[in-house]
Each structure stands twice: as structure tokens, then as C-alpha cells.
């Protein structure tokens, strides 16, 4: 159990690392090219992994065509956070991305299953909104030394 907890926490660290690196690439190439490199490099890596792990036989039979839309959202998602990361810092980006993700999840569940959010979820959304407001308060004058432009 402890091993899996560390693994899941480590996964968050890996997500943060990816964002930091893509953010740096976007300072040189711009956000869209950064998104392109992220996806093509990940694609090559996963191609190798599929050969190693032998996942090809699972093929995509029966999946509806719109299930493939994820990649298109992903292209914009990576471009957008890469652009803001060097400007806001990793922590604020993490908090704001999580906020957007969590609030959307509540709305999407409501839309997909037609079940209104529970009281606990409603309270959760309110807390996230307050937390987002706090990230605006936390000013960071030290950031100004960073932009060379």
C-alpha cells in the first residue's frame, strides 16, 4: 500500500516535471511548437513501450470515433499551460489547472449522468474557488527578474 501511495505521489511529480520542461521549451520555440514536440516525443516513446509491453493486439475495435477527440484537446492544453508556466510559476499553474479540472469534472458528471452534485461536492467547489482567489493574492515580486524581453 505504501508503495502505491509513493507511486501515485511520484506520478504527480512526473506531471509537474513534464510541465516545467514544456514551459521552458515554449520560452524558446513558443507554445504551439512546444506542444508539438511534447506530443511527437511522447508518441515515439509510447510506440516503443507498446512494442515492449505488447499492447498492439488490444487494437481500437468498437471505440466510437469521437473517443479520439482527446488528442485535440491535449494539443491546446499543453500549449496553454506551457505559455503561462514561466510567467506564473509551477505552483500557481498546478493549483489553477487542478481547479479547472475539478470544477469541470463536477459539471461533466452532472451533464453526463444528470445527477446534481452532492453537498460535499458543492462545498468542494466553493473551497476550490476560494483557493483560486488566494492564488491572486499571493503576489510574487521576485518573478520580475526572469523575463529577459
Amino acid at each position: 500500500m505504501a508503495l502505491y501511495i509513493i507511486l501515485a505521489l511520484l506520478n504527480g511529480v512526473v506531471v509537474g516535471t513534464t510541465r516545467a520542461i514544456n514551459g521552458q521549451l515554449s520560452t524558446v520555440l513558443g507554445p504551439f511548437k512546444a506542444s508539438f514536440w511534447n506530443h511527437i516525443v511522447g508518441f515515439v516513446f509510447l510506440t516503443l513501450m507498446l512494442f515492449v509491453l505488447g499492447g498492439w493486439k488490444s487494437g481500437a475495435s468498437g471505440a466510437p470515433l469521437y473517443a479520439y477527440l482527446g488528442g485535440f484537446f491535449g494539443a491546446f492544453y499543453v500549449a496553454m499551460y506551457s505559455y503561462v508556466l514561466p510567467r506564473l510559476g509551477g505552483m500557481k499553474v498546478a493549483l489553477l489547472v487542478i481547479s479547472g479540472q475539478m470544477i469541470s469534472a463536477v459539471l461533466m458528471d452532472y451533464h453526463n449522468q444528470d445527477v446534481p452534485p452532492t453537498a460535499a461536492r458543492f462545498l468542494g467547489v466553493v473551497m476550490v474557488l476560494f483557493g483560486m482567489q488566494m492564488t491572486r493574492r499571493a503576489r510574487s515580486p521576485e518573478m520580475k527578474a526572469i523575463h529577459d524581453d
Partner: protein
Amino acid sequence: MIGRSRDWLLAFTSGILLALMLNYNGLLAKHTMPIFASWAAHGLGAFAAFVLVVSCSRLLGPPSKEAQPPPKAPLWYYLGGVPGAFTVILAAIAVNSSLALSGTIALMLVGQVLFGIVSDHFGLFRTPKRRIVAADFLAALLVLAGSVLIIFGRA
């Protein structure tokens, strides 16, 4: 200040896009398996990003002659996609443990925020250094506690 608000909104919007991406990738993974779904999403994402790059350069026209050549990025700047792709594999392992999906997502969010704090403090991967203040911890606590309520308060 307006620039800050725009950055803030863009970061939030990217979270919405992430939720949509995970929704469709999850749907695809149900029909196949997580690694295959992520592989397909990366391939189509690369195509979409390529279209964006080309259409942007068309819209903006050729770079002016006076423009300085862009600074060269070190090789590791290009390798962000490797850890990015690796998360799918790590997540697939954790989800199948007793943590289940909810526990895995909650811990991943905590890991992201902890990394953000450490990364800002030390300027990891050459990112800008940023001093973490008390308000940051309060913001992190509120967002994470709220997220935990959202993740586990589903039923």
C-alpha cells in the same frame, strides 16, 4: 495587472481542456487499454499541434529579416513528452491497487502541488525562482481539500 489576469485565466482554461482530454481518453481506454489510448491521443495531438504551428506561421507571415535568430534550446527541453507519456503507465499501476481511481487522482494532485512548491523555490529545470509565501500555502490547502471533497464526494 491585465496580463496577470489573462495568464490566470489561461491556466484555469487549460485545466478545463485537461478534464475534456481525460474524459475522451478514458472513453477510448475503456475500449482498448490506457497505454494504447494515450498512444493514439499523443499521435493525434501531435497532428493537431502541427496544424496549429503551420496555420500560425501562415497567419503571421514569414519572420522579418531584422528578427534575431531564436536562442537554441538544450536537447532536454525537447524531452518533456517522455515523463508525460510515462505518467500513463504509472497511473495504470496505481489505479489497479487498493488506492483505486479516486485515491490515485487525489495523491497525484498532492504530488503536483508539492512539486510546484519545491520547483518554484529552487527554480528546478531552469524555471523562474519564486518565493513561496503564507498565502500560497493557504491557497494550496483550499484547492487540495476542495478537490478531495469533489473526488470522494461523488455518490
